[in-house]
């Protein structure tokens, strides 16, 4: 096909150089990551002469520690995820899902939703492309739910601020929601609520098949690191600044009564609040993390997180172009109920 990026000759020599460069960058990255804590303490308590244990001292040290840590984590992990994603494409995912039944198809679609490169602007062509090639509606939805709900920036920030257990819970519950919601949508037989023009489209299939060298993969991963980190860093800084202020100034347990496990209405409220906050996912997590220290509960936080990334107004507007209002309503309702149940479940078991 066209769009071939072929670089013949000297490939192994180039790959060796590239590998050495990556090893070097990894070493620098690890060194920098380990320097953050001593450096932030030194800056706040020695250079700025702030007292450890005071409101201001704690807030400043927290800020100086978390900002570089999160930005380093974001850069490193987005690079790795982007390398992984160069091995996938919507076309390949469609081919993998072709001919899969409900059930297996839903599970596979949800998992592919995590690794397939996908921007929400592409939701419509992707939806049409999947449905038109005969992939069942429910399986298509498992993909369309998993892709935004399991958001890489949210995942990395949960990992950085809450640890791997919470990050793991987030991914697992996102997958389960995508699989189950897709299966329910499949069972409801909602094909008639998809806009009619979708069924009339005959695409030419194909698309661009590319052959990438390792250099191409690294270039692309680096490009997406610059793009994503370039977009979210102001939110990260503002979010961590607010989080640091909460960390330093809000008294312990202050939020137990309004965001704790016993406040039954906190989970649905968190889900509703999450809908309009789409672009600020990166800024929201540090704030939420600080709130949790003060007594907000994990289930509420996870429900909020999923709502922020999974139920966004712009994406609903995009999906409206292929889904009739009734179908869009069912889609939103299923997701909202799923997020709320996840929130209650984690509040119950943790």
């Amino acid at each position, binding site marked *: 096909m066209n*769009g071939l990026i072929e670089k013949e000759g000297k490939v192994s020599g180039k790959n060796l150089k590239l590998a050495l460069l990556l090893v070097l960058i990894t070493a620098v990255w690890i060194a920098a990551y380990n320097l953050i804590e001593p450096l932030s303490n030194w800056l706040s308590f020695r250079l700025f002469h702030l007292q450890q244990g005071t409101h201001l001292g704690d807030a400043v040290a927290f800020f100086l520690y978390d900002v570089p840590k999160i930005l380093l984590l974001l850069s490193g992990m987005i690079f790795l995820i982007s390398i992984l994603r160069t091995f996938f494409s919507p076309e390949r995912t469609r081919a993998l899902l072709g001919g899969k039944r409900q059930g297996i198809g839903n599970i596979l679609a949800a998992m592919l939703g995590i690794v397939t490169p996908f921007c929400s602007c592409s939701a*419509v062509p992707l939806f049409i*492309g999947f449905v038109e090639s005969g992939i069942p509606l429910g399986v298509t939805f498992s993909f369309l739910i998993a892709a935004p709900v399991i958001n890489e920036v949210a995942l990395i920030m949960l990992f950085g601020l809450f640890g791997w257990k919470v990050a793991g819970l987030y991914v697992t519950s996102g997958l389960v929601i995508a699989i189950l919601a897709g299966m329910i949508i499949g069972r409801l037989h909602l094909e008639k609520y998809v806009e009619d023009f979708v069924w009339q489209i005959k695409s*030419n299939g194909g*698309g*661009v098949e590319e052959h990438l060298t390792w250099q191409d993969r690294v270039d692309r991963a680096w*490009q997406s690191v610059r793009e994503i980190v370039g977009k979210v860093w102001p939110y990260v800084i503002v979010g961590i600044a607010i989080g640091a202020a909460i960390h330093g100034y809000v008294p312990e347990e202050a939020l137990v009564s309004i965001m704790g496990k016993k406040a039954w209405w906190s989970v649905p409220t968190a889900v509703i609040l999450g809908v309009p906050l789409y672009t600020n996912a990166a800024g929201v997590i540090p704030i939420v993390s600080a709130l949790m220290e003060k007594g907000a509960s994990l289930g509420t936080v996870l429900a909020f997180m999923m709502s922020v990334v999974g139920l966004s107004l712009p994406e609903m507007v995009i999906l409206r172009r292929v889904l009739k209002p009734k179908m869009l309503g069912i889609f939103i309702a299923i997701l909202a109920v799923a997020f709320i149940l996840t929130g209650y479940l984690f509040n119950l078991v943790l």
Partner: protein
Amino acid sequence: MLNIKILGGGCANCKRLEQIAQKVVDDNQIEAEFGHVTEYPEIMKYGVMSTPALVVDEKVLCSGRIPSESEVKTWLTAA
């Protein structure tokens, strides 16, 4: 005269792709006309499942990402 088309619903990525293509055309004094395909049924006719996509003389050169300026230059000067 090249016929360059940008396929996509019109989000920020499509605009970035157009800027890059426009810059390459200007810098290299390539004769080209630009077109936009924003309607999904039309986009699907190109077999594209992810936007933005760059189409030159009805051939899809890339989709689902924003290519670098040097990549676009290679395509446009070769076409």
